[in-house]
């Protein structure tokens, strides 16, 4: 499944997501550093408010101390939607570790979000 990518210094990055591979151990830190996240919202719509709440809860419960979140309101800076290739709102982007992942929706599906955010980290720690 996963192949080493020579141009990515921290080591081979994970590929496909299979929920069966998921470990539920919370707080497993990626060896390369903290998980960098960016949450794009557009104003105070219901979905956006939910997404912010869901992300906060989820990170504190499962990724305490291992993440960094940047919140971007596109209504204040629409040009950023173009630069970062955002069309769906809300979108949570995992910028680090690679590869880039986009999780769209209000993040109400906690399992899926966690799988997306952590599986790569687990892959990285167990090459």
């Amino acid at each position, binding site marked *: 499944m996963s192949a080493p990518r020579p141009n990515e210094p921290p080591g081979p990055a994970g590929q496909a997501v299979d929920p069966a591979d998921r470990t539920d151990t919370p707080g497993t830190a990626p060896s390369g550093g903290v998980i960098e996240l960016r949450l794009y919202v557009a104003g105070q719509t219901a*979905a956006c408010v939910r997404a912010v709440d869901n992300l906060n809860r989820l990170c504190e419960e499962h990724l305490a101390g291992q993440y960094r979140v940047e919140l971007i309101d596109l209504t204040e800076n*629409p040009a950023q939607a173009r630069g970062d290739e955002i069309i769906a709102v809300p979108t949570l982007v995992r910028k680090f570790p690679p590869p880039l992942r986009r999780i769209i929706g209000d993040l109400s599906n906690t399992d899926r979000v966690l799988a997306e955010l952590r599986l790569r980290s687990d892959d990285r720690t167990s090459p």
Partner: protein
Amino acid sequence: MNRATPEGPTPSGVPPAQSGDALLLPKARTGIRGLDEVTDGGLPRGRPTLIAGAAGTGKTLLGLEFLVRGALEFGEPGVLIAFEETAADLVANVASLGFDLGRMQADGQLVIDSVRIDAAEIVEAGSYDLEGLFLRLGLAVEQVGAKRVVLDTIEVLFSALPNEAIVRGELTRLFRWLKDRGLTTIVTGEPGREQLTRHGTEEYVSDCVILLNHRVTEEISTRRLRILKYRGSTHGTNEYPFLINDRGIVVLPVTSLALDPGAPTERISTGVSRLDHMLGGGVYRGTTVLVSGTSGAGKTTLAAQMAAAACARGEHALFVSFEESPAKLVRNMASVGIDLQRWVDAGLLTVWATPPTAYGLESHLASLATLIEEQVPRVVVLDAVTGLLHVGVSAQVTMAVIREIAALKARGITAVLTTLIGAGGGAATGLVVSSLVDTWLLVRNVETNGEYNRLLFVRKSRGSAHSNQVREFVLTNRGVELLDVYVGPEGVLTGKARIAREAADRATARDRAQAVSRSRRKLREHAAQVEAQVTQLRGQLADETAKVEQMKAELAREDAALAGDRVEMAQHGWADSAPAPTAPTEGEG
């Protein structure tokens, strides 16, 4: 009726008010040649139009040209949201058409936002909307004050984003958003299996749907465009061929409805004076002349003579040859005394030759339209339109020729078409355009006495008294000449038979002339004889007169002598004394 709303991001350039013509649908001209004609004025203003067609049919280009022409020709900036290609690719793809998208973006006439959606990157975790797309679109529209938007191809959203229900809901919202802002929009879509587009985009676009396709019929590839639906507007319902040439899209016909040449009364010469005479003084400018004839009847020569006649008047002529190369045409015409080279050198004549098999029909016609636009000729020769049958099936070619005639007429260009007909004289080619032409000349070969002779008829000449006579059509080294045919008790005679007949007539005439001159000579001789006799008699008369005078003189002398004798005798006899010296009475003797 949804119209541009003043609260949209672009307050300027609100569509025309509908106070006067409340029912008239406002339209936005595309500037694409031919498309505004078949849509009767353009796309519905402030509303979305769906352009559906398979890959490679020209959807993206049509959309781009709509934006480019909108910005450059109608002062309506545009936004392209490209879901499939990057901005750099798009810029490069259309650079060859002379569209400088980079510069247009710099000048604030165009925004290209290419939306890259990688389905492999995206995971859905809960409900979402497409506000990001709306924000990007809104930003772009605001950036240049856009009036036009192209979404190419919005269906990518369906394949890239999970949860089709959300995408559908958002599309409904998007089209409402576009309408609310009065944006004239083109959305493109690829055809689906059971519906117009793969994901049913047509459900969102109710005003105008245009289909593009690219078909190969009898090995000839043709792009076609059809307006499937145009709510509230008249439009052409046919499939119109179109092509992509070096200047963009050209939909045929490229006639501009705005042009009305009126009905010129000026007559122009065909270059054959007797033919002009037969037509009542030439053909009307801007009309269409059809020269049909059997193979080798002299159609090309007659057409060339008309082109040369135009050049001789100082007009530009375009000779389109589907049969011969320019060099061969010039050479062949030179052999019958028509000097085309001279006019080519003078820049008045353009000979455009293209083997009919080189391109598809629509490509031919579009090149021709471009050529006519560039050269602005007053006379165009198409020799022979039947040559087009090699590139299209009969019905298409007939349609194409009909459109071509209409286009030329609309521009006031005199057209000369030649067509090949079968030996029987009928339209053996199935190309029936004779009802559309104004003047129809028929050139036929007639075989008599072991030779072929050419006959020319004026089959039809609209708006002119024209000769009902058949003329013999002769190719001389001074071009085409028309001779009277011999019409006599033995019927119409041509060629050698005519010459023989004429010779016989001449002989008869000669005989009669000789008889007259003979009589005249006799008469002259007789007059001379009479004259001689008169002279002789006058001589005799003179002689006799002289004789009489002589006798009178002699008589006088004798009388005098007699008188003298008498005196002498008296003196001698002393019979009388001193006789009186009286002279003897003259005439007494």
